[in-house]
């Protein structure tokens, strides 16, 4: 097939170069074991009229080429940040295979990744709404099957996605302020209780996520998963916060 390359917006890729990013890529690059054909339009995927309008016009073009042959143009420098087991080329190859196998799902995800760029460049959009777009992407990844559990899986993925997005943003706030890149926290990051505000938002998200998680009749490995959701997810927050506090100390001295 013709190698039509539709570049994924560099802003999306460079901005997301962390846990969120490779989680998605990793899931896409998974040997297709867990991502099924069924695309599920859930009650949660409402996009407001205005956004839909903007996005359809811009997306038409990109959308066609992406559908034809999903390929990522991954900035070379970012390849260094990928886990060493996976090179950018390998990732691209696998992603293409998966996209060919599950066109609808890959379609939807690509569409929403584009939406993310759009939404990030819109001014004054509440951070909750921006995070929601990424939430919807993760939700797609988690709904691997169209059965009685799809709603719970959707909620699980959705709120985990919002958690990840916001955590990433918290990690990157200082860097983004310097480079002028979009960050949902740029307005509140100088507040005195900024760290606490972020923590509260994160707790809100992970709380909804675990509510959905606990509804699933999981028996094997459930304790491992619980360890991740109740404890593991905070590791990066802890590290970010330490880094910020240390930086502040240095600046004070």
């Amino acid at each position, binding site marked *: 097939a013709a190698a039509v390359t539709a570049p994924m917006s560099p802003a999306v890729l460079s901005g997301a170069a962390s846990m969120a990013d490779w989680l998605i890529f990793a899931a896409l690059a998974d040997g297709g074991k*867990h991502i099924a054909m069924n695309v599920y339009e859930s009650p*949660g995927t409402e996009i407001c009229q205005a956004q839909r309008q903007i996005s359809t016009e811009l997306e038409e073009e990109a959308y066609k080429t992406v559908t034809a042959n999903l390929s990522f143009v991954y900035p070379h420098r970012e390849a260094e940040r990928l886990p060493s087991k996976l090179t950018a080329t390998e990732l691209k190859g696998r992603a293409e295979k998966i996209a060919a196998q599950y066109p609808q799902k890959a379609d939807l995800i690509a569409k929403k990744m584009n939406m993310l760029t759009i939404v990030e460049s819109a001014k004054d959009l509440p951070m909750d709404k921006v995070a929601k777009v990424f939430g919807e992407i993760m939700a797609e990844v988690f709904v691997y099957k169209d059965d009685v559990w799809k709603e719970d899986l959707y909620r699980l993925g959705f709120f985990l996605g919002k958690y990840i997005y916001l955590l990433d943003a918290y990690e990157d706030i200082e860097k983004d302020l310097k480079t002028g890149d979009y960050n949902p926290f740029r307005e509140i990051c100088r507040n005195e209780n900024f760290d606490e505000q972020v923590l509260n938002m994160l707790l809100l998200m992970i709380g909804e996520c675990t509510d959905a998680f606990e509804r699933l009749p999981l028996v094997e490995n*459930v304790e491992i998963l619980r*360890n991740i959701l*109740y404890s*593991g997810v905070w*590791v990066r927050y*802890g590290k970010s916060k330490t880094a910020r506090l240390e930086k502040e100390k240095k600046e004070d001295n």
Partner: protein
Amino acid sequence: MDPYKVLGVSFNASDDEIKKAYRQLSRKYHPDANVGKPEQEAYEEKFKEVQQAYNMIMDQRQGKAQAQQAYDDFWGFGGTTYTYGGQSQQQTETQDEKYIRSALNYIQNGYYREGLNVLDQVQERRGPWFYYSAFANYKVGNNAIALEHAKAACAFEPDNYHYANLLRQIQGGETRYQQRSAQYGGNPSMYGGLNCAPMCGACLVANLCCGGGYMGLPLILCC
């Protein structure tokens, strides 16, 4: 039906016991497992019953049953001075009141996005505005906005039972999360310092055991 009886568990069975019971029974009564057998039809009914029972218990335990009650009662707000829904609807109605009535209509019928768009038009925003906005935002997944607005509604009318209920529901997930996370080393809101040690242990376990699903990549990056 008595969901606990259906699953064969006691009323104070743990969540994990409930899940095990569900798994066993749903395997036994699964349509695929009983094709051609004389009990096939009866078991199909049983299968649905088991699913229903499981959902009922989970709903109850997460306070969703109360939430449903609150939802049904949603429009029975009292103690406000707004005159919507039947009273003084005609010429004396302001533009704002028209918008709110229209938004309410949308929201009652599940058109949350449309309802929110209409609410956007309203100039004067008080308790009811924030309440409807919180509700609709919660339904479409904007729970952070919903929380803000629910708090605002309660600030306007501290004695409003419905507002307080909605706020409780929106915070419900976080409340339950706090209760559970204590068992797993806690979360940052529980300790002032940054105790990385217990979490790293968890991460190692997580990485080892969940590596398979993501091609051996760690699910959570750690130190």
